[in-house]
């Protein structure tokens, strides 16, 4: 209730800044979910492949590492949008 009252007391510019910060944080959170699911799936399948065929582990690990880094780029893009809008 106090938070709602504080929000209601904001002036135009303050309200705009507060809503921009809130939206940016929300967007960053959403942008981190997708890569999290993607990395989990990618690493899970890689572990399965390495357990089945340890002799191919080197190749699997290399591609897994690059895949993790590419997937993480999505979260970084969300983070950059967050710092450009919200900070």
């Amino acid at each position: 209730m106090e938070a709602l009252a504080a929000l209601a007391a904001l002036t135009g510019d303050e309200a705009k800044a507060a809503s921009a910060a809130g939206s940016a944080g929300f967007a960053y959170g959403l942008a981190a979910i997708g890569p999290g699911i993607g990395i989990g799936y990618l690493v899970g399948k890689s572990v399965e492949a390495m357990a089945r065929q340890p002799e191919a582990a080197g190749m699997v690990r290399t591609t897994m590492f690059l895949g993790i880094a590419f997937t993480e780029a999505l979260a970084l893009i969300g983070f950059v949008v967050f710092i450009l809008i919200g900070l």
Partner: protein
Amino acid sequence: MSTMTTPDPMTTRLEGEAPEISVSLDILKRGAYAAPVIVAVCAVFAGLDGVFSSLYGMALVLVNFLLAAGLVAFTARISLGLMMGAVLFGYLARLGLIFLAVILVRDAPWISLTALGLTIIVTHLGLLVWEMRYVAASLAFPGLKPRRPAN
């Protein structure tokens, strides 16, 4: 009829050299080559603030790669299950570290958030694509990358 069993990922561990470390060191080397170009571009549109911000952004990206590779290499020697957990929680931890690193300098007089943000994205993606070309070529044509005989 024989049945094939899959080894338990919780107890399987990987010995030997860690390819992630060599990939990330290679990315570090390429980052050093690309740094002057990125810094010069940021200097053109954001001045001295752009120079400092782009250097900071590049350092963040390269440390992020090294941390990720170190985590995978260290935990893969213990167990594949641990490696999976470390990658997932490491993803969260590294995002948190980047967040903290940017929050700490956001009010610094030398920071340009636009230059910092663009440097993070461009460096991360650019270095990855550059490295991927090399990795893809060496995986597809291993004969092009001869190794020294063991003895």
